[in-house]
């Protein structure tokens, strides 16, 4: 991996692990519209999430739970795309 990519990955982990603790807890644009027009309660969970609400499970201290979820998700996303890339390379004959 190039030094530049390493730096950006490190910054990403930092953003996902530290900045995320200070994220606004206000509802986002769509949630706000759903609240204002009374359909927010229609939201349902069809498949229970592994890490719901970006809080790492079984971690009592909330900022730490968020930080761990952020770091985990950032690295998982990175690895997923790397893996997909390897799959594309492997299946070049198709």
């Amino acid at each position, binding site marked *: 991996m190039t030094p530049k990519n390493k730096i950006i990955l490190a910054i*990403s982990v930092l953003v996902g692990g530290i900045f995320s603790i200070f994220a606004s807890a206000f509802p986002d644009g769509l949630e706000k519209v759903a609240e204002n027009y009374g359909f927010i309660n229609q939201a349902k969970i069809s498949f229970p999430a592994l890490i719901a609400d970006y809080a790492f499970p079984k971690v009592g201290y909330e900022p730490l739970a968020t930080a761990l979820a952020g770091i985990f998700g950032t690295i998982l996303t990175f690895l997923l795309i790397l893996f997909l890339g390897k799959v594309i390379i492997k299946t070049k004959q198709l």
Partner: protein
Amino acid sequence: MHIPDGFLNNQTNFSLIVVASTFCGLAFKKAKDFLFEKTEALVPQLMTNVGLEINQPKILNKLNLKLNANKKIQQTAVVAAFIFACQMVNFPVSNGTSGHLLGGVLAAMVLGPWLGMLAITGVLAVQALVFGDGGVLALGANIFNMAVVGTIGGYYLYLLAVKIFKNKNISIALAAWFSVILASTACALELAISKTISLNLVLPAMFFIHALIGLGEALITVFALKFLFNDYDSKK
């Protein structure tokens, strides 16, 4: 604007899963063009068993991995990771509402529209499948809004803007802002088609709130491209 399950009806969800899958298939095909090149390889043929005549070498078309293929994959992965992280950081906009980066134009500017679309799709898939952010059934809709409309659409918005304004940063900012508006409009249309809320209510409501969120998108996109992804090869 990750749509949870329950907001859209089944027809809308499944139609958009089909649309999103089609675009993913296309993007994979395009990704191969970035990663491989056809080369003509000379394959010397064996001498015949008589040992006297030597055939002409045979020419075969071969798919070869481009030299920068692995670098391109790493770039895609790094951009996706960065956007995932940024999407966790909601910034407050107004009267109790927050927004976060969508990253469509950012991804498209660094990776081109197709690899950019795949990067955003990866982010959305992880969010829906691991973190329950955005419904699993609504994943097609979310991919359509943010990866197809926001990223591929955002890329062409940039091309249009740069033709008119001849200034890179202004064009990036405008494309980023409009990409959020377009994605939120698509979201509003889906909600209206699903009969969750009438179009004449949801369209202006989504527009006004995302007109504000889009300002944050424009700011983050311009700064991230200028200071973080500045020397990335932006050739498409």
